[in-house]
């Protein structure tokens, strides 16, 4: 097992290299660069612009730029400096607790989604084709098909214009109300935080829930049609015991793989919601770097997201081996 994990970890290195080369190529193919907007400034002359181009190394050929970037990482452990803020790339990405909030948001959404989706999936499977089953499926797909940013905006609009939360002194968007921004942590501040986070949970969660519910439902239905379930029933076991003690444990197998993959999806997929709901996440720093074509930060973010994805994959495989005794890696 250990050798398997070590081997997988080593595989990550060439994978990340390929991802980095592809990303670099894509960024370079995009029209313009970080200094394009500066060219429209009537106050700057060509000489000054040229100095800036040299300063950022944008005049060197493509492969030299990539080689320099790679060399800095391997030899100095230096991922470069943001063109815009001159900070080291990962400080720019993670500052202000961005990494913390990204992980908190991803984990809390993951846990909440699962807490709701698994029981709902089980209910859906055990009440197959009943109206409640159809209703659950319908709402699941509704949450999946409404675009996240739109749902977030509508939610905020409802809170402000229909429910007039401003009148009760409650704000929308961001992590805290303005009055708590500079105040020390307290119970009231924590409650306020939950008030600001629940729209995010609702929006991100509903899109992920539909898939999970259907997956759980399908998997459980499959399991329930197995012969050993029939045996258990004929042994006289209560239906509840049959379902929860025997069937669900086996049905949950494929979902464990999904669990490992959901985490990186949450990290990189919540960018739009974070922008609308104003939550400080790594995705926002990445998006703003993309808009400005701040290449070092974009490369750093892509490496970060890819690493997360690879770790998520490894985690999924590991969990699968842990849960299912039939699966062993060598």
């Amino acid at each position, binding site marked *: 097992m250990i050798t398997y994990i070590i081997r997988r970890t080593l595989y990550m290195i060439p994978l990340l290299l390929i991802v980095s080369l592809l990303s670099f190529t894509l960024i370079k193919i995009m029209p313009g660069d970080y200094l*394009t907007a500066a*060219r429209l400034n009537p*106050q700057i*002359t060509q000489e000054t612009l040229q100095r800036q181009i040299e300063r950022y190394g944008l005049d060197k050929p493509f492969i030299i730029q990539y080689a320099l970037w790679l060399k800095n990482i391997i030899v100095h452990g230096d991922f470069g400096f943001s063109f*815009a*803020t001159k*900070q080291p790339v990962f400080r720019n990405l993670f500052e202000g607790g961005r990494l913390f909030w990204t992980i908190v948001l991803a984990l809390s959404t993951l846990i909440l989604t699962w807490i709701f989706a698994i029981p709902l999936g089980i209910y859906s499977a055990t009440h197959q084709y009943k109206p409640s089953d159809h209703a659950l499926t319908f709402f699941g797909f509704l949450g999946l098909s409404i675009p996240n940013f739109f749902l977030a905006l509508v939610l905020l609009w409802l809170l402000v214009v229909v429910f007039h939360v401003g009148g009760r002194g409650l704000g929308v968007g961001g992590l805290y109300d303005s009055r708590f921004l500079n105040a020390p942590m307290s119970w009231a501040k924590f409650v306020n935080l939950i008030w600001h986070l629940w729209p995010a949970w609702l929006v991100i969660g509903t899109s992920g829930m539909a898939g999970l519910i259907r997956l759980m439902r399908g998997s459980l239905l499959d399991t329930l049609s197995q012969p050993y379930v029939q045996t258990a029933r004929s042994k006289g076991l209560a239906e509840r015991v049959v379902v929860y003690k025997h069937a669900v444990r086996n049905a949950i197998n494929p979902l464990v793989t999904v669990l490992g993959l959901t985490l990186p999806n949450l990290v990189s997929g919540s960018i739009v919601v974070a922008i*609308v709901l104003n939550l400080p996440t790594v995705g926002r720093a990445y998006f703003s770097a993309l808009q400005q074509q701040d290449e070092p930060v974009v490369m750093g973010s892509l490496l970060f997201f890819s690493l997360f994805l690879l770790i998520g994959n490894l985690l999924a495989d590991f969990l699968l081996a842990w849960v299912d005794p039939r699966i062993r890696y060598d």
Partner: protein
Amino acid sequence: MKKLALLLAGLLAIAAPALVLAQGYDVMPEDARILPIGQAGTPYADLELGKQGGTIYISQISNPKGWNANTAHETSTTWYTSRMNLGLVNLDHITGAIVPDLAKSWDVSEDGLTLTFHLRRGIKWSDGTPITADDVLFSYNDVVLNTDVDCNSYDGQRLPDGTFPVMTKVDDYTIEVKLSVVYRPILNSIGVPVQPKHKLAQYVHKLNPDVPAGTFNETWTLDTPVSELVGNGPWVVTDYKPDVSVTMTRNPYYYAYDPAGTQLPYYDEIVCLVVANQDVSLLKFRNKEIDVLAIRPEDLPVLMPEAGAKGYTVLVSDLPLYGTTWFMPNQDIGLADGTQNEKRELYRNVKFREALAHLIDKETMIQNVLNGLGAPQWSPLSMGSPFYAGRDYYGGPVTENNAIIFEYDPAKAAGILDSLGVVDKDGDGWRDLPSGAPLTIEINTNDNTIRSGYCLILQDDFRAVGLNATFQVIDFNTLVDKLFSSTGDIIQLGLTGGDEPNSGKNVYHSCGSLHAYRYSACDDPDEIDRRIDELLDLGASTFNLDEAFEYYVEYQQLLAKQLGYIYLVNQTFQYAYYDYVGNAGAASPTSTPGGNNGLLTELCFDKRI
């Protein structure tokens, strides 16, 4: 006991709120700048005196990129740094004219080649250190004019003959600037932000060889603890939470006061919430979380109906905001590869461009895109500028006696096109080139609702008269590429504006880097191009404003007739504010569309106190 004390100290350190700044002046400095708030007979007569206190909440779309005023490159940063670091001169809050700021006065010598600035005595930095000529010389000579430093203001200091002003210290409070030619616009550029020498000199390689060249570009970045920041302006940044908020606190040593002796600014704090999505900032405004909101045209139908009832006002100015929007037929189309020769000749024909100008339905643009709150433009200069040719004299009221207007007249446009031979020869319903070859026009702009709105109206008007025009949105960077490589057809964009006609030199001079409608004019200027170039030089070479005004009127009229950039409209709405924000009804005349640029944060106060 000791443990308890340590524990308390530790808790206080963690729990301490934003920075506490020093005490401030014991008495008002003798050279304090008094803003005549509420005084009759002054431009500030309509403002009210306020009381100190309170916090104002506004929103910004993006994070600042640093705290260094002289290496800042965009408005999200300069919004803060321009409030932390002021220069020798500045633009007046209400009139937009150049007035003394860090300097209390200046003299111009007889021959116009020497400027002498007198600094205010007794004023201090926010950390209590006195401000002297050393700080000004450091900021100008060692930072702005230093090519190691990545400073956007560098090129603006260049004189017409290519040399730079020489700034020298006469004494601690007197500075002399020597010019090699008379150059009035130097007053616009000399007001660079003055930074504290005692804090920053150590990072400039020229002054401290121990640090590598270019270190200054990485000084006072977002990594710097805000407690390190020292300024001479009304505000100092005291807290920064990325993607959340930036807090600025009153500088205890700011040297401006109101006539009642109250130190400005009135507000104790500004809290800027970073709200990336403008729909959300609109909601936050309606939720009373923000006090002032920069509005987009699409917000107007939502905000205007409820304005009085909900306790806020939408501020609309008499004159449009600074800046221009235009469309530009590319007069060098196909020049590089020798194609499209007939179309290029057509675009170069001023009568054709006149026909296009008669097809601009500015009224519809104002009604549909700007919700009725806009004004048409004909001049390259922003209407708020005292040099605007719509005035009869420098700084006079706008009468439009000198205006060159091409009225919306599709029939006339059709007539001009007919006379040029641009008629439908093959019977497909679209006008063709005089030789009979088909004529297609592509209008491009970037993905911006306002610009797309203008272009759709343009496309419709062109097609209504028989010109086969199509509108295509393209990526901003691709658009800029087309602009600079002369590969576009008709491009629609906008430029920022300003008071000073000379700031547009790069755009309107025949060899300017932004003379995108016809770069080839640099090698081959015609009579009008030469006269425009000449007028730019004449206008800049006199300190006599009335004389300069005459030159600039002719300049604007020539450009308007030349129709290189053909101007459209600009918005007149500024921002929405709650009525408890005093003095928010006066906006800066130099505000630009988007962002809270017009809000006079130094003069606003909380009426509820």
